């Protein structure tokens, strides 16, 4: 089966982010979205450790240990960017100021519940970071993930079996097979990878799907 590549997924997310948006990109796959935001579009990247206007990684040798992102990687600050403390940073999420966040996920439920912080394994050390704050804080929560687990099970599920990060918080899911909206009427397929029929996607996903109306998206 044909699948969207990582770069294609990231480019597809980037298409949905308009000029002027304040955006937090989660650790992992979502960070790739930054590479696909058009240069001519002014978009403000937020990092929860206290910066707005985050720029790309610095050139080798110019790393500054005091200038890092949430993944603790060295970054740069764009001209016009700003630093602030942690309580202000999370007020930007919780207070509804952040337009988008893009997160990875283990599972998303048909009603938009998100599980992305813990597999529930007994011996795993739990670590949540800013995931729960982002999940409920951004105006629109976008999830990027593989459609299926390595074992072939759908990661879009009727009810999450992993511990929840947030309840009914996801707005749109971008997978390697499809773009799907979470709506009050259920999951609506916006587009699928070339050659994948709606019925086949529905079979793979295993929870009720419908086609999004032409005006959606």
């Amino acid at each position, binding site marked *: 089966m044909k699948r969207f590549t990582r770069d294609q997924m990231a480019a597809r997310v980037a298409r949905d982010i308009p000029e002027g948006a304040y955006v937090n990109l989660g650790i992992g796959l979502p960070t790739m979205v930054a590479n696909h935001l058009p240069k001519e579009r002014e978009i403000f990247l937020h990092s929860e450790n206290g910066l707005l206007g985050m720029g790309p990684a610095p050139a080798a040798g110019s790393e500054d240990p*005091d200038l890092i992102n949430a993944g603790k990687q060295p970054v740069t600050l764009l001209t016009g960017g700003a630093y602030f403390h942690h309580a202000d940073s999370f007020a930007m999420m919780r207070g509804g100021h952040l337009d988008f966040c893009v997160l990875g996920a283990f599972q998303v439920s048909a009603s938009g519940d998100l599980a992305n912080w813990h597999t529930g394994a007994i011996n795993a050390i739990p*670590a*949540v970071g800013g995931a729960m704050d982002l999940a409920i804080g951004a105006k629109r929560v976008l999830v990027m993930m593989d459609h299926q687990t390595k074992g072939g099970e759908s990661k879009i599920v009727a009810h999450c079996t992993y511990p929840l990060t947030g309840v009914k918080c996801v707005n749109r899911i971008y997978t390697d097979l499809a773009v799907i909206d979470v709506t009050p009427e259920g999951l609506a397929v916006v587009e699928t990878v070339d050659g994948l029929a709606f019925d086949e996607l529905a079979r793979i996903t295993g929870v009720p799907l419908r086609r999004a109306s032409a005006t959606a998206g």
Partner: protein
Amino acid sequence: MIDKTVASPSAAVADIADGATVMIGGFGTAGMPSELIDALIRNGARDLTIVNNNAGNADVGLAALLKAKRVRKIICSFPRQTDSYVFDALYHAGEIELELVPQGNLAERIRAAGAGIGAFFTPTAYGTPLAEGKETRLINGRGYVLEYPIAADFALIKAEKGDRWGNLVYRKTARNFGPIMASAAKCAIAQVRKVVALGELDPEVIVTPGIFVQRIVEIDVADQLSPPQAAA
């Protein structure tokens, strides 16, 4: 004359006693007050409760404090990192208590303590395992969780410059938890790269006003360009 500067890190932390709750600034190693932590290890206080975003990196700073078995409990949002093996081992051995707090709730609980707020309702973690057993409320149709402030006996933080009244400015993302921890502790101790003369800090850009800071220590260390490496 008021002079909050202290001659050495050891003198600054000398009265941190067994059982104290100590906030430690920093996000990973950015803003981590390593020299104050080293002084706290030399000080010998045990049975500490530590508040930090993480649970230490490699064998230095907070990880070294954990390794010396001085910490009874840690309150943090993200203990598990690629080089958090000191914490990992203590946790698996059942030798340290962990209170896991979503990062924004951690920040707001610290801020609330410094601002004199008795408790607050937050939407973060509603409906998740981290809200289990906590009071909840529907406000305008949305679910919220009641969270209480986190106050401390001491805060150890790192800033870029300070003056003898305790006014502080920070450097880039090393600011992170510094300002809110300073306000939430009975005694906030700041290590700064440079103590400057009163009046040299522009009053318009002071981030932490001196009322929140009790002690200042100058530690002029060259910035390391890479995170501390694990001991071989």
